[in-house]
């Protein structure tokens, strides 16, 4: 299999990212200066993003003969740009999140590699490419989780994520092989024409989707989430909450519109509906009883991914005729919008945790008195997380839930909004602790040298406000992408 002559221009951004990762690794190894690597990584991310914006990737990539491995589309390009944007937001957090001796050039390399996987994932058009991209996304994350290797919790987080992630990968591979056994095809286009709800196909689909659900932290595949979130270094947790969620959701959109098309999607939709409902309930209720901020936000992720999957449930059952193109675009763009907003919000929240050195909920006590600006930004992010208008979190829920109601999933949406009230309780509780509670006794001073992180928190809060007041540009972009998923 000779790939070299077949590489089309469409791959350029991904190749830039991958080669950039290698270059960063080389530069980092020779200079041993982390800042060089981080600077280089930021330029590479920017360049890849610009490249995607200026000359959107088109066409596909294939073996010499045979089906397309990757199929680029406006949808995959839009997702890629947004994923690169999220990585760019995480980059300063990675820099500030580690002590100088643990701040290695390899952090930037791993981020670039994970981004490469994330960017390729929404373009996957073949189960093989899907698997490879997902692993490329996941492996750097396993390593990053264990980055503070002297810290038992960090090592545990890395190991746990790795072992359970491998288990999920194994299940997924087994599911793919069953799909192959059922249809004899691996590429999405052929699968789409052969998809029949035979028992073999359905079991394969269920196993594959459980791997996807694992990456999304959907209940009941969520068990690792609180431990990994708690143990992983805070910047890595932010990355975990933002990057894989959006990338895997984009892939799920492609799966539901493509290879799982037809009667099989109806089953997939019902399965996802159960997972989404369970995630919303479990995430929202268990978040309330957490004392550790990162565990709290882990349950919040579970709930929020549940909210984001609601429109995808609606997407799953839709026929592909001209009458439903609008609704397909609306559901997919709703989910994507929600997860972009959620990614920005999480990055802001984790940056605030890192900035203030907050571990437990009680560390936030009296923050409004000590650091009013930080408390304001954090308050905006939390109100957005609770879905209070006019912030972006509300717009995300609106855009996610409206098409689901339109597609006839009103009851699931009803559960969703009821759970969003439950979920708002912990956000409000954090605001209460931060703003209303008096500080008891003295506490050690917050670390003050990481001043730039405060700007990151403020920037994320500003994005949340702007996306809430003016959601139209981003949503129009996603809606246009949603009309051209393949």
């Amino acid at each position, binding site marked *: 299999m000779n790939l070299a002559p077949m590489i089309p221009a469409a791959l350029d951004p991904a190749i830039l990212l991958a080669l950039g990762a290698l270059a960063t690794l080389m530069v980092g190894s020779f200079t041993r200066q982390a800042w060089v690597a981080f600077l280089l990584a930021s330029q590479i991310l920017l360049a890849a993003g610009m490249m995607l914006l200026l000359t959107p990737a088109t066409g596909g990539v294939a073996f010499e003969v045979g089906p397309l491995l990757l199929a680029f589309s406006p949808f995959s390009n839009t997702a890629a740009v947004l994923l690169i944007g999220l990585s760019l937001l995480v980059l300063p957090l990675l820099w500030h999140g580690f002590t100088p001796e643990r701040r290695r050039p390899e952090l930037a390399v791993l981020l670039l590699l994970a981004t490469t996987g994330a960017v390729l994932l929404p373009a996957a058009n073949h189960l093989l490419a899907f698997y490879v991209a997902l692993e490329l996304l996941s492996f750097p994350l396993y390593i990053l989780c264990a980055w503070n290797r002297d810290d038992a919790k960090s090592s545990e987080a890395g190991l746990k994520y790795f072992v359970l992630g491998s288990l999920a990968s194994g299940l997924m591979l087994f599911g793919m092989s069953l799909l192959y056994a059922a249809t004899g095809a691996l590429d999405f286009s052929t699968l789409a024409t052969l998809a029949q709800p035979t028992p073999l196909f359905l079991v394969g689909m269920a196993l594959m989707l459980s791997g996807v659900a694992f990456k999304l932290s959907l209940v009941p595949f969520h068990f690792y989430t609180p431990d990994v979130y708690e143990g992983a270094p805070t910047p890595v947790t932010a990355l975990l909450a933002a990057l894989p969620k959006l990338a895997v959701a984009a892939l799920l959109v492609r799966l539901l519109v493509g290879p799982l098309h037809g009667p099989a999607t109806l089953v997939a939709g019902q399965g996802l509906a159960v997972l989404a409902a369970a995630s919303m309930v479990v995430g929202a209720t268990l978040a309330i009883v957490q004392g550790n901020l990162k565990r709290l936000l882990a349950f919040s992720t579970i709930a929020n991914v549940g909210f984001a999957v609601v429109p995808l449930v609606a997407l799953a059952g839709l026929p592909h005729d001209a009458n439903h193109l609008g609704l397909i*675009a*609306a559901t997919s763009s709703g989910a994507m919008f929600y997860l972009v907003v959620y990614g920005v919000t999480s990055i802001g929240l984790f940056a605030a945790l890192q900035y203030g050195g907050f571990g437990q909920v009680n560390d936030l006590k009296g923050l409004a008195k000590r650091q009013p600006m930080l408390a304001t930004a954090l308050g905006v992010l939390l109100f957005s997380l609770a879905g*209070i208008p006019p912030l972006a979190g509300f717009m995300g829920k609106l855009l996610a839930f409206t098409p689901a109601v*339109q597609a006839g999933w009103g009851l699931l*949406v009803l559960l969703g909004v009821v759970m969003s009230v439950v979920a708002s*309780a912990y956000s409000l509780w954090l605001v209460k602790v931060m703003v209303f509670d008096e500080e008891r006794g003295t506490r050690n001073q917050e670390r003050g040298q990481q001043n730039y992180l405060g700007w990151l928190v403020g920037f994320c809060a500003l994005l949340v406000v702007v996306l809430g007041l003016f959601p139209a540009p981003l949503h129009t972009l996603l809606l246009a992408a949603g009309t051209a998923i393949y």
Partner: protein
Amino acid sequence: MLLSSLILLPITTALLVLLAPRGLAKQLALLGALGTLALCGPLYMGFHPNTAGLQFTESYSWLPSLGVNFTLGIDGIALALLLLNNLLTPLVVLASWKEARNTPAFMACLLGLAGLVNGVFAATDFILFYVFFEASLIPLYLLIGLWGGKERVYAALKFFLYTFAGSVLMLVAGLYLGTQAGTFDFTQWGPTAQALPLGMQVVLFLAFLAAFAVKIPMWPVHTWLPDAHVQAPTAGSVILAGVLLKLGAYGLLRFNLPLFPEAVTLLAPYLMWAGAIAVVYAALVAWVQTDVKKLIAYSSVSHMGLVTMGLFSDTETGLHGALLIMVNHGIVSAGLFLVIGIMYERLHTREMKNLGGLAALMPGYAFALVVLMLAAVALPGTNGFVGEFLGLAGSFAAAPWATALATTGVVFGAVYMLVFTRSLLFQAPSRFVMEHKAACTDMNPREWLVLLPLLLFIPLLGIKPHLAMDLWRAPVAALLVQPVAAPEAPAGLEIGAGTPINHQSVSASTPTVSPTQP
């Protein structure tokens, strides 16, 4: 442009107040509030009272992909409440002038709240309405939680979660109706809503009711109100009682009554009984309170019970009565909370056993309080009388027995208000008051300035209630003439009849409209 300036001016001022130096905050806030009030002048002058249609309409594209627009417009009902809101805002800013814990953030919350509430009354797009309706929770949550009394945190959380839980049900109902009708402009939802099966109509009616019943608050979901009122600072209580409670009744008038007439006919008897129970129950509970602020809080529940009865009576008299009670209650309860605040600033207690004899110490104060009390017990000649009379008369036609029960509640109302007045003004001064005699100075000019506008409205609306009623005569008449079923289904109905609709047609049916103004 007038309506959007009414929304944007207070919110912009709020942001400026936050950034301004600490010493200038309250002056700037007062300026913003007075500016907003001044904007109401052209609004009132340019309003044509003889039409039920929307006036001062504006429309901007906001979220075209979903068919959501930034559309504003008011009728007489909204105008009356807008005027009330913008009258109260400068008064509360002035009333909190000397508040010890007063900070720029406090003033910013007050002004932000005013702007958001203006938005609720002016919005004609459901999503926009919901955004303003919910966003108004944030400033009040902060007002209660930051500047409230001892149990402020509990009260703030309870207030927020109660109202939030109610309104998300409304959100789902609104999303459903919006997708069915193909537009989120709720003034066009009527035919779609009435074409739905009755069961669905009842469900949607109840979903909207959930949001508004909590806000009004109707018995038995009223329990957040006494907590919130008692803990809130004076300014918060005034705005809460004066304006925010009206949001619930306003919502009923905008959604429940015009959209689901059949469901109203079906459920009105029960809701009127709930209203009657609220009147009597809250009056009895108010009677036994020892905290004077809690007493007034329960009196709000009682009065809002009468509003509910008037609204669901489905008679013109009842609706006029309900609206008048809303306006009157906005004036009188705001005044009463201000009066309590003035007393609290001097004595730092609200317990009845600590009070008494203030009539001798503060004669001017006693005068203002007695005028407000007389309006609250609906003495003929005050504005309270006209409202309660019309409300009860209208309700009697629809539900005589429930109204009879409610009328006894009005008697209890006189009882608790007299108890309230006696305990503050006329009973023998408690030892506490005697010890703090020096603090009991009569009202200063600033406090008079705060109360006088409210005191003037009491006889004015008592003798000439038509000043207010003329504003909403046309929309009220339009509410009562309900088309049972539209003869021809409008365009939106065909799209949304039962099946999921094409999303593109949603955007197509609501084209971007350039700003217009009559």
